[in-house]
């Protein structure tokens, strides 16, 4: 009798759970679940700006995967991201090595960490603006600085149009992206190293292990999961790259074709007046999602196999 009463009281308490999660569930269903499903539905229709949507089966998907501009945009995205991730993770990794080195015991991590993270705080519009102005090929401060250095050594500098010429625009964007994100990756890697118990390092040092052995045998294996986390999240973010390339290029520039990313391609058909094809843009969104899914699964598989 007492036990039964107690249980019913516990159920009564547990029913409060519905109350606590109700606002989340309502908003989640309306603003997250519905839009995702709606986009999926639209990707099978021929909806333009207005008018009715007709079911067209996989026609949009067929068009996505046969459109050479989609592939070009995907290639641009991957190229910019690859250069970016190598610089960003490489730099973060080097810094992690420096700050976790058992021989040099570098001080000042809290200060450096904050300084390296600073560029990540600024809105992409501000970053884009700042670099658009700094990198202007005729009047920008960057080229004027280089020109000054050339003059000092008595050479002539032919100003490079960093963002305007197709051969440099992608790399310039990749470098700026890395500048924005390496601090973030560095903090993550450092968090992983600091999560490693000091006992391991001390025990290894007592056993007479050299610093490279310690790095290779203790530090590296222990931070591998975090490397994976950083790589996967950066890829998911990287394939959706939009703000910087969008803000730092314009459709009339010769470099546009080499910096248009998949998201910019999607934006063109989803939201740019005059070219709106909602159904097709929805298919582009899901095509990109499939690609992201595939690549992150591959990445996870690659990293976990190495561990075995």
């Amino acid at each position: 009798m007492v036990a039964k009463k107690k249980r019913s009281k516990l159920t009564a308490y547990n029913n409060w759970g519905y109350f606590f999660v109700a606002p989340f569930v309502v908003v989640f269903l309306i603003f997250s679940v519905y839009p995702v499903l709606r986009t999926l539905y639209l990707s099978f229709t021929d909806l333009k700006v207005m008018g009715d949507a007709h079911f067209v089966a996989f026609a949009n998907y067929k068009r996505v995967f046969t459109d050479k501009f989609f592939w070009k945009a995907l290639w641009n995205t991957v190229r910019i991201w690859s250069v970016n991730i190598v610089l960003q993770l490489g730099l973060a990794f080097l810094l992690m090595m420096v700050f976790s080195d058992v021989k040099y015991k570098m001080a000042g991590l809290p200060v450096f960490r904050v300084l390296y993270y600073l560029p990540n705080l600024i809105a992409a519009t501000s970053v884009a603006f700042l670099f658009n102005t700094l990198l202007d090929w005729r009047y920008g401060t960057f080229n004027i600085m280089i020109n000054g250095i050339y003059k000092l050594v008595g050479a002539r500098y032919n100003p490079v149009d960093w963002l305007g010429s197709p051969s440099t625009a992608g790399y310039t964007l990749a470098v700026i992206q890395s500048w924005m994100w390496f601090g973030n990756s560095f903090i993550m890697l450092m968090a992983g190293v600091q999560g490693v118990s000091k006992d391991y390092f001390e025990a290894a040092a007592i056993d007479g292990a050299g610093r490279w052995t310690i790095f290779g045998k203790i530090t590296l294996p222990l931070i591998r999961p975090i490397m994976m986390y950083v790589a996967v999240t950066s890829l998911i973010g990287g394939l959706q790259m939009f703000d910087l390339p969008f803000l730092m290029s314009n459709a009339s520039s010769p470099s546009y074709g080499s910096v248009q990313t998949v998201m910019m391609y999607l934006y063109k058909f989803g939201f740019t007046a005059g070219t709106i094809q909602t159904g097709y843009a929805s298919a582009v969104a899901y095509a990109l999602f499939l690609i992201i899914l595939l690549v992150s699964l591959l990445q996870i598989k690659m990293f976990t196999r190495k561990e075995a």
Partner: protein
Amino acid sequence: MGYAIKKGILYLLLVLLAAMCLLPFLLMLVNATRSGAEISTSFTFIPSSYLKENWQILSDYFDLFLGMRNSLIVAVPATLLGAYFSALTAYGLAMYKFKGNKIIFGAILVFMMIPGQLSLIGFYQLCTKLHLVNSYVPLVLPAIAAPGTVFFLRQYILSSVPPSLVEAARIDGAPELYSFHRIILPLIAPAMATMGIMGFIGNWNSYLLPMIILNKNEKFTLPVMMATLRASLDMVRNQGATYLAVAISVIPILLVFCFFSKYIISSISAGAVKE
């Protein structure tokens, strides 16, 4: 000897890298005080005297303070709603056993992985149907359902709030909501602050969604407003004003960072160790 020199070189490199992170900001501040003609012809770290003129040019283009006010109107409620309702949801998921608990948690995990672009078109269509275009509602209200924040806070509650605490309050006859507000919220406040600050920065800096939802100039948030300047730009005349605009847009975030950098660093670290 060799040790000290090598260590010195390492520090020098670290400082150089830090300088590279700061240089664009420094140039921005210096150039904000120089005339467009000065910037276009020479390079210096010494401030000039054109700050006021630059401000004039800038004011002719747009009202930065209006943009800032709009950004605050969006970012502050979104951050507060996000922090409060995520805590509420996380507590509900962590402390109560009810039907659907696991399903909701599963959905949260799935939606943490789904890239945002997948909902963009459907989201816009929904806003059109509900007549929410040009309204701040679609930029604020969805903050109530932030899967990542709920996930983070749920883990935090499970690891740092003992259930016996709540049970003791029940025996004393405290209502459930009272326990949540008076006992749980203070306990998880540091975690909420961490997520809240990141949420604020994200909302403040957000560009794509506000650009799609808002199309009236007087509604523009700061990043959207800044982006309109791009097209209408006379480089030589307006360069100084451009730098000034960027500088002003960056200041609020730098202030937030000065006070809360500890929380920000710890939230990034938590993201890594979560794995």
